[in-house]
Structure formats: structure tokens, C-alpha cells
């Protein structure tokens, strides 16, 4: 090892406190930055690969029925690569009590499976976790892996399903995950996916229960008319004593329309017992009847060649194909958008945090390295005087920061990935169904790490070069601290004369060491701001939950009604639990050249589902128009008085309605109106939710009601979903606090080192430890207090920024930080500043007057 290299290691050892803090600052910044990115980018990249491999659809379509010819029509549209259709319907599992809900360890009373009957599976391909591959010709079902895992269903098990009373048995052929079911919840009232009493399955269309179709066919007006006509005919024939229906006189049969399609004798034979012989009877009524033609495929999914033109393709499908109810893209899909939002939400707030970590650490490390090189001035001068080349000296000093920052950066990336990245990715992916996922280190992380190393190296290089530019003789002399008269003259006049010497001394020291002071203020303020923001996010999220569940949801129970409830069931429900209802419908409205899909909630809840104004205070809506949430108005550039042209999805009646007011909702940006207003449109109001404050704790099932939810369950669900965010915030708080301690300690060390010889002078003069400590701490306390005062409003601003701008258009909430949080964050930082400085002040006792003063010479 060369002599100069030995010097590097010895100097590092001699200045270990400073180099350890440099190491820690770089490490913590890279650790947090790399860790947070590892899981955020892991989420994003894993889904990207999964979607691509499994060919997630580009366009979602709904219609009354996608018949073959309509499918062909869509396929012919330019840029459409492929189209598939689905028949999606919910089925109940018979005998579901044999399965145990892992959440409460109780038998599952109602296990619902969303059954998707398909033909081919080239788009939105199932990912097989277990069992055999899907084929249209195979019987059985391919079940949601998440559900199967949760309640213990295995490949080969048999499930008996029921669709509106039509039971059928299916063997589980495979356990699958599907790209458009990454984020899948039971219904809109559920907040996070549990997959304990609901899930999804894919089956061949051939497995669709035929009796269900026959029932539907038999219920049609056409068939009912035919049955009535057959009954009349049978009566007439019996009057004439004709019982052999193969010998009906042609005079009669000629009178029947479409007689060639009907097997009349068979139809008459089966007429009395047609419900037992549905298939034969229907085929008797229509010789050409094919069950394949009767499936009602309300959904279709399309794949495009050129994704950059997907929007045009979507519009073309909607415009040129008849009866398309909705055509939406990936960003409108619940699963795709929900997952993406989650990744982006975290991305923004953790990006802000980790970005600040890096900024503060760089600032602090750069100042420290600059000061360190300055301290080495006479040694640099000596080396130069000895004739060592400038480049060699520079290389040596550059190596100090280079080695440490490289090691700290590598460790930061590795440990950030392993600890933060893996932990949070695992935690997050519990809620999402993606079969393979991994932490990812994107180039940006390496770029930031390399950037930190380069900046530190560059600053060290420049500081060193500056000293080396001086003649060796000059560099051999210590640089005397200069007090500029221009800048400090004011401190010798007027009120300043009345200040104590230590105060004046500190004021001038602050003015003299501007870079260090600014760095100290930025460092402490930055860390305090991070702490305020992190705790502020806690407060704000809690305030958001309170706004939603204590103000808006003013009910004890929410009953989500079945889509096919009868009038009788409805009357019974509202007579028992009160006529407090709402209906939410999908609407489309014109916004300049775009058609935007949103929802309209028709609120007839009598105050149980409240609408809140700008200041989150409930108010009663007027009955003369539409209300729109503030965030949505802002996003779509709408205001009170504007006329909106809109229609209910699936209806051709377009309305032009005035926006009569704005309301705010923390998590649902939509239109609202009263039932009185809705009734003026002559649209049918069909409630989908009933709200009540009755005690329903002992009621498990209500006819016509899909789910009974307590407000507490809803709130717990929300909190469970937020737990992930809370955990990440805790990590960010921990890193912020550690970084704050390290930075404050580092600043203290810098401040102390620069004043050491002055303290030694004071000590020689006879100043006692306490007197010198007071001088030393005074300045750092000032800087600390000043930084804290700046940081508190900045923390509020940053929290506000994160909530207002960074978390997606569907949310609307701002920083709602409790005064106590500001007080505790401020006092907390102050205590850290105070304790660290008390600790550092102990160094005053250890000042060796002789060597400090000699060293200064």
C-alpha cells in the first residue's frame, strides 16, 4: 500500500465521526430511495410483464348481446386484432357451509362466484397456477387461485353451482389468475379484495346451464304467445275429438304462421308438461333452434395492433357497430386502474420523500467534504511543497469521498432492495392477483447513486483544486477566518451593542459561515418537514376516514340490493328499515370533444348518505339540477351554471342539465342529484342501496338484499387498505428521524470542529465548560429553532401537495394536520437538536488547549 493510501485510511480513522456520518447520510438516502423504488417499480414492471404475457385486452365492450355477426363486424374494424365475447353471471355455490372463511373461522353461508363463460381464450389469457390448460371443448371450471387458496379448494374438487335456481356441477380443472382480475372485489361497497366468500371462474360456454336458457326462452313473449295459441288450438281440436295430433286437417294448419318451422303435433303433445321437456318443446316450436344462438354475451374484449391508436379504434367501434352500450379502455377498468393507482399513489409520496432524503443528504455530505478538505489545507500545502504532483494529491483527496460514497451507495441499493423493497412488495401484493412479481431496480436508482458519488467527488475535487491553485508557501499557512466588515458592521452598532458578547459572536459566526448555516437550516428544516409530512399524512388519512365515515356515511347499516329484487321485496325492505335509499347509475357526458364516463348518484337517503360542501359540512341539495364534486369540476373545467349534456349508459335519452351546485367527496368524484330532480326526467328510479340506523346485528339475510354492511365494517375495510400506507409512512418517519439525527450530529461536528481553536482560546482565558457550552449550543439552537419554524408550514404544504396533486383524480382531500402534530414534530426536532448538541458539547471538556492552539499555529 502506498504511503498516500495509508494516509487516506489513517485520516478516515482519525475523522471517523465525520466519515461515519457521511457514510450514513449517503447510505440512508440511497437505502430509502432504492427501497421505495424497488417495490413501486416492482409493482409496475411485474404487472406490465404479466399484462403483456397474458395479453390483457385493450378495449372493454358491453352490449345487449354480442352475436357472431356483431363480433365479425368489430373484427373487421381497422386496428382491431382480435375480439372475444363473454357471458358473465354470478353463481352461488351450493353447500358453501363446508368451506370455512379464514377471516372469522366460520362456515361460509353465501359463496358467490363470478362465472365467465367463454369460447376461445386468446385475449386476457388465464395464467395456470395448478391443473390443466383451458380448452373450449373441456368440461369443468378454472377457478380463482386466490379464493381456492383461501378456502382450501383443490384441482379435482367438485362444486355445485346455482344460477337463478339452475343447478349444475363442475369439476375444478385448474386454478388460475387472470390479468383483468388483478384487483377484484365483491362489489363497489367493498374496499379491499378478500376472496373469502367470493371469487371468479372461467368455463367453456358449453358448460352454461341449458335450463337457464330454456327458462329464458320460455319466458319470452313470443313463446308465451305461442303457448297460448297452442292451448286454444288444443281446445278446438278436442272439441272436434281430434286427439291424434299427426292428423290435424290442413285447413287448420294452413292458418298458422310459420307452420313449416313448427313440429305442431309434438308441440301439442308436450304442451301440458312442457316444463319437464323444455328442450324438446322449444325445438318443437322452432325446428332450427340452436342453443348456441341463444347465449347472451353482454361483454366483449378486444385486442388492437397499434396501442397508440386505441382510443380512435374504441370510438370507431362505438360509432360504427350498433347497440354498443359502453366501450372503455384500460384506464377505465376497475382492476387495471385500481392497481395502477395504488402503484402511482405510493410512487408520488414516496418519491417526494426519498427525493428529499437524497437532496438533504447530498447537501450535507457535500458541505462536510468541502470543510474536510479545507481543514486539510496545510497538509495539501505540505504535499505540494514536497513536490507531489497536483493530480496525485487531488486523486488522494477525491478518494476519501469516492470510496465512502461508493460503498454506502452499493450497500444502500442492496439493503434497500432486500429490506424495504421485498417487505413492502410482499405486503402490497397480498391485495393483488399477479402470479409472478419481483422487486425491480430501474436505471434511475443507479443514476441517482452514481449522481451522488459524482457530486461528492466533484465537490471534493474542486475544493482540493482551489487550495492547490495557491502557491505551496501560502497553502502551508492556515486560512484565517475572515470577518467581513461590510457584512458584520451593523452588529457593532445600536441595539447590537446591548447584546451579550456570546450572542454577537454567534451572530457573526453565522454570517461568516453562510454555507454551513444554510446547509444546517436546509438539513434540519428538511428533516423536520419530512417528519411533519409523514405524521401529517397519518392525520390527514385519519381525517379522511372520519370525513367519510362520520360525516358522509350517516347510517348504521347499508343494504346493497340485488339487481333483480321484486317490488314486493323492496316494499317490505323500506317498510321495515325506512325509505332511505340511493341509486347510482353510469352516465356519459359530453365535455368538449370527449365523452366522459362517470356515475350519478340519485340521493333519496333523507340525510343518511350526506352530501358535504367545500368545508366538509353537510348540506341539503336543491331539486333543480345536478351537483358535481369540486375535484371533478376542476378536472373537467366545469362550474356552477354550466349546462351538461348527458345520458344514462344504455339509454338514448340525452339531457341538458344545469350544474346547480358543487359538493365534495373524499373518494368518489361523481354527479349527484335528488330523486325529485331525477323524477322530472321521467327516468325510472330503481334504488340499489337502502340505509338504516336500525340494529341489524342479528340479521344475516334479507330477501332482495345482496349484502348487509355495517358502517364499522366499511370503516375497518378502509383502514385495512390504508394499513399498507401507514406501514410505509412509519418506515419513512424512521428514516427521516435517523437522517435528522445524523444530519444534526454532522452539523454539530462541523460547527464544533470549526470553532475548536476558538473554544480552546476561551478555555485558556479561564472560561468554564458551562460558559463555552452555552456559546456553542446557542448558535445551534438558533439554527434549529429557525429551521423548525420554516419547516412546519413547509411540511403542511408538502402534505397538501401530495394529497391534492399526487394521488389521482378520484380522491379529494388535503392536508388536515392536527396542531398537536406540528407541536410534537417541532418539539421533537428541538429535543433532538438539544440532545445531540449536549452530547457534542461534551467534546469541549476534551479540548486539549495546548494542542488545539499549537495546531492552529
Amino acid at each position, binding site marked *: 500500500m502506498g504511503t498516500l493510501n495509508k494516509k487516506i485510511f489513517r485520516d478516515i480513522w482519525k475523522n471517523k465521526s465525520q466519515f461515519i456520518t457521511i457514510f450514513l447520510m449517503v447510505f440512508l438516502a440511497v437505502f430509502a430511495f432504492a427501497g421505495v423504488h424497488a417495490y413501486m417499480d416492482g409493482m409496475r414492471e411485474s404487472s406490465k410483464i404479466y399484462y403483456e404475457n397474458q395479453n390483457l385486452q385493450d378495449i372493454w365492450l358491453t352490449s345487449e348481446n354480442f352475436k357472431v355477426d356483431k363480433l365479425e363486424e368489430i373484427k373487421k374494424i381497422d386496428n382491431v386484432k382480435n375480439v372475444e365475447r363473454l357471458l358473465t353471471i354470478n353463481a352461488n355455490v351450493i353447500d358453501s357451509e363446508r368451506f370455512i372463511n379464514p377471516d372469522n373461522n366460520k362456515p361460509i353461508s353465501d359463496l358467490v362466484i363470478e362465472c365467465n363463460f367463454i369460447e376461445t381464450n386468446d385475449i386476457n389469457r388465464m395464467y395456470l397456477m395448478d391443473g390443466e390448460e383451458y380448452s373450449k371443448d373441456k368440461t369443468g371450471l378454472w377457478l380463482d387461485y386466490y379464493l381456492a387458496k383461501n378456502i382450501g379448494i383443490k384441482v379435482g374438487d367438485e362444486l355445485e353451482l346455482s344460477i337463478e335456481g339452475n343447478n349444475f356441477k363442475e369439476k375444478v380443472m385448474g386454478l388460475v389468475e387472470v390479468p383483468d382480475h388483478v384487483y377484484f372485489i365483491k362489489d363497489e361497497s367493498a374496499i379491499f379484495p378478500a376472496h373469502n366468500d367470493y371469487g371468479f371462474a372461467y368455463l367453456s360456454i358449453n358448460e352454461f346451464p341449458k335450463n337457464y336458457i330454456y327458462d329464458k326462452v320460455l319466458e319470452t313473449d313470443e313463446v308465451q304467445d305461442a303457448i297460448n295459441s297452442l292451448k286454444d288450438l288444443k281446445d278446438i281440436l278436442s272439441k272436434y275429438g281430434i286427439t291424434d295430433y299427426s292428423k290435424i286437417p290442413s285447413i287448420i294448419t294452413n292458418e298458422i304462421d310459420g307452420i313449416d318451422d313448427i313440429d305442431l303435433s309434438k308441440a301439442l303433445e308436450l304442451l301440458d308438461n312442457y316444463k319437464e321437456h323444455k328442450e324438446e318443446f322449444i325445438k318443437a316450436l322452432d325446428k332450427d333452434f340452436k342453443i348456441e344462438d341463444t347465449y347472451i354475451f353482454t361483454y366483449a374484449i378486444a385486442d388492437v395492433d397499434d396501442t397508440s391508436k386505441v382510443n380512435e379504434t374504441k370510438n370507431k367501434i362505438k360509432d360504427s357497430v350498433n347497440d354498443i352500450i359502453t366501450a372503455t379502455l384500460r384506464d377505465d377498468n376497475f382492476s387495471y386502474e385500481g392497481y395502477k393507482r395504488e402503484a402511482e399513489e405510493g410512487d408520488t409520496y414516496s418519491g417526494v420523500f426519498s427525493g428529499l432524503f437524497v437532496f438533504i443528504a447530498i447537501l450535507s455530505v457535500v458541505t462536510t467534504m468541502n470543510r474536510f478538505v479545507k481543514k486539510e489545507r496545510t497538509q495539501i500545502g505540505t504535499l505540494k511543497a514536497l513536490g507531489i504532483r497536483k493530480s496525485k494529491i487531488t486523486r488522494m483527496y477525491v478518494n476519501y469521498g469516492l470510496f465512502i460514497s461508493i460503498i454506502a451507495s452499493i450497500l444502500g441499493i442492496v439493503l434497500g432492495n432486500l429490506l424495504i423493497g421485498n417487505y413492502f412488495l410482499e405486503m402490497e401484493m397480498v391485495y393483488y392477483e399477479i402470479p409472478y412479481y419481483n422487486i425491480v431496480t430501474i436505471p434511475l436508482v443507479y443514476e441517482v447513486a452514481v449522481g451522488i458519488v459524482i457530486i461528492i467527488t466533484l465537490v471534493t475535487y474542486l475544493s482540493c483544486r482551489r487550495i492547490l491553485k495557491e502557491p505551496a508557501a501560502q497553502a502551508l499557512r492556515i486560512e484565517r477566518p475572515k470577518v467581513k*466588515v461590510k457584512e458584520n458592521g451593523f452588529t457593532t452598532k445600536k441595539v447590537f451593542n446591548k447584546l451579550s458578547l456570546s450572542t454577537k459572536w454567534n451572530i457573526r459566526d453565522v454570517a461568516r459561515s453562510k454555507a454551513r448555516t444554510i446547509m444546517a437550516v436546509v438539513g434540519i428544516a428538511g428533516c423536520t418537514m419530512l417528519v411533519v409530512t409523514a405524521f401529517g399524512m397519518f392525520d390527514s388519512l385519519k381525517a379522511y376516514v372520519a370525513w367519510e365515515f362520520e360525516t358522509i356515511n350517516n347510517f348504521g347499516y347499508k343494504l346493497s340490493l340485488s339487481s333483480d329484487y321484486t317490488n314486493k321485496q323492496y316494499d317490505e325492505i323500506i317498510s321495515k328499515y325506512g325509505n332511505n335509499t340511493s341509486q347510482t347509475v353510469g352516465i356519459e357526458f359530453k365535455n368538449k370533444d370527449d365523452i366522459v364516463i362517470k356515475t350519478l348518484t340519485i340521493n333519496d337517503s333523507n340525510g343518511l348518505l350526506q352530501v358535504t360542501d367545500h368545508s366538509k359540512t353537510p348540506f341539503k341539495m336543491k331539486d333543480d339540477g345536478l351537483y358535481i364534486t369540486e375535484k371533478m369540476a376542476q378536472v373537467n373545467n366545469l362550474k356552477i351554471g354550466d349546462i351538461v349534456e348527458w345520458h344514462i349508459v344504455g339509454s338514448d335519452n340525452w339531457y341538458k342539465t344545469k350544474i346547480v351546485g358543487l359538493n365534495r367527496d373524499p373518494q368518489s368524484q361523481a354527479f349527484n342529484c335528488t330523486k325529485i330532480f331525477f323524477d322530472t326526467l321521467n327516468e325510472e328510479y330503481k334504488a340499489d342501496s337502502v340505509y338504516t340506523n336500525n340494529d341489524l346485528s342479528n340479521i344475516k339475510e334479507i330477501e332482495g338484499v345482496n349484502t348487509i354492511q355495517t358502517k364499522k365494517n366499511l370503516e375497518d375495510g378502509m383502514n385495512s387498505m390504508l394499513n399498507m400506507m401507514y406501514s410505509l409512512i412509519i418506515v419513512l418517519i424512521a428514516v427521516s428521524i435517523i437522517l435528522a439525527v445524523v444530519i444534526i450530529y454532522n452539523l454539530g461536528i462541523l460547527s464544533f470542529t470549526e470553532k475548536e481553536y476558538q473554544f480552546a482560546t476561551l478555555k485558556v482565558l479561564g472560561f468554564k465548560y458551562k460558559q463555552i457550552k452555552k456559546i456553542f449550543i446557542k448558535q445551534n439552537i438558533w439554527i434549529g429553532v429557525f429551521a423548525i419554524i420554516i419547516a412546519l408550514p413547509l411540511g403542511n404544504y408538502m402534505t397538501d401537495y401530495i394529497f391534492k396533486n399526487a394521488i389521482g383524480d378520484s380522491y379529494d382531500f388535503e392536508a388536515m394536520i392536527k396542531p398537536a402534530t406540528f407541536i410534537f414534530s417541532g418539539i421533537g426536532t428541538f429535543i433532538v437538536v438539544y440532545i445531540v448538541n449536549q452530547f457534542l458539547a461534551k467534546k469541549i471538556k476534551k479540548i486539549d488547549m*495546548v494542542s488545539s492552539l499549537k495546531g492552529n499555529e
Partner: protein
Amino acid sequence: MEKIVELKNVSKVYKIGDNEFKALDNIDLSLNKGEMIVILGPSGAGKSTLLNLIGGMDTPTNGEVIIDGENISKYNENKLSDYRAENVGFIFQFYNILPSLTVKENVDIVKDIVKNPISTDEALQGVGLLEHSKKFPNQLSGGEQQRVSIARAIAKNPKLLLCDEPTGALDSKTGVEVLKLLRKQCDANNGSNTVVIVTHNSLIAEISDTVVHVKNGKIESVIKNESPKKIDDIKW
């Protein structure tokens, strides 16, 4: 004559790694009150160590350091601070004045630690810097800065004025000025003040009352100078 400094069997050993270095080796020394004493010796002889022990900036490894009848070698940190504050004025080769304080404030600072300091203006008047009192140190020449350092030391009205190479960084003319101030301080208070100067410049010995020669950590000789030269008579 009354003794102001008495060192009995004093040793100072520094540990450097596994090695020990004896800076002072079992020395005995008595210095009289009211004298200007020069401690003379080559580099590394132990003269600054001797000065540091007398000034309470360091403690001996063995032996007793008695100042004006008080054994300060057993003092704790606090008592040593009090001792330095009340009894000792220091002057260093590189002045060690505080760069963030003005000339006046550098002298004023002693008011925080001394019960009966002489007035700052009087001290500055004494060193001829009253008109520079509002300046900052970096606006002054080296000689002027050393005079601030002297003013700060004499403002404490100390029994002992300890000077470590006070003219080492100055040109001859300024050095003479400084020595004159030190002699003036020695003669003040009816000649009761004691000034101890550590130097390797033997010329300064000619103006002193007593010359102590130190070599290799031992007192080589203590010589009384019966007829000290006038400062203006010494030739640099």
C-alpha cells in the same frame, strides 16, 4: 524575594503510542514575584510545557506546581479555570484572538470571567489601540493583533503574564514594541506583576531579570541578570 512560582520535583510525561516522552524530567524551579523572566532553550527542550504547567493549561505527571502559595497541580478542571481566569494572562505567538469579535469585544470578553478587570479602554489605551477598538482582527496588522492579545491579557490584571514566543511572528520593530508593553506590564502595580516569556531568541534574555535555561526537559541553569538591558538597546 517573594516567590510567585515554585515547581517541586515536576515531571511531565507524554505517551505517544507505546513510547513515553519525558517533556520535563523531575525539575525544581522558583520564580520571584515582580520579575520579567525569560525561559530560554532550543525547540523540544520543554520550555512551553513548563509554561503550560505554570499557566494551569496542563497538569504535571508528578510533582507540585505552587503558584503564590497554592498547589495548583491537584486542582480539578473548574478550579483550574478559575485559576487561569483570575491569575493568568496568556500571550501566544499567533495571538489567538477571536476573529468574530471586534478589538474592543476581544478585550471586553474578560469581563465575563474576571471579578475586577481593568477597563477595556484603559487596556486598549495602554497598548495604543483605542482608536482601532471597533475594528475586526483581520483589519489589523500582526503587531496590532498581538497588542490586542496583550490588552486582553492585561485587562484581567493578572498576577502572571505568560508569553509563548510573543515576538515569534513579528518583525523586529514590532517585536520591540511588544516587549516594551510586556516590560510596562511587569513594572505596573508597583512592580508586583510577573511576566514569564518563553523564547528561543537569546536576545530577549538580555532584557530580563532572570533567565532560565531549559534543555532536554531539565533546568540547565537559572541566571540572575543584575543589569538588564534597555529594550531599545538590544540589537535584533
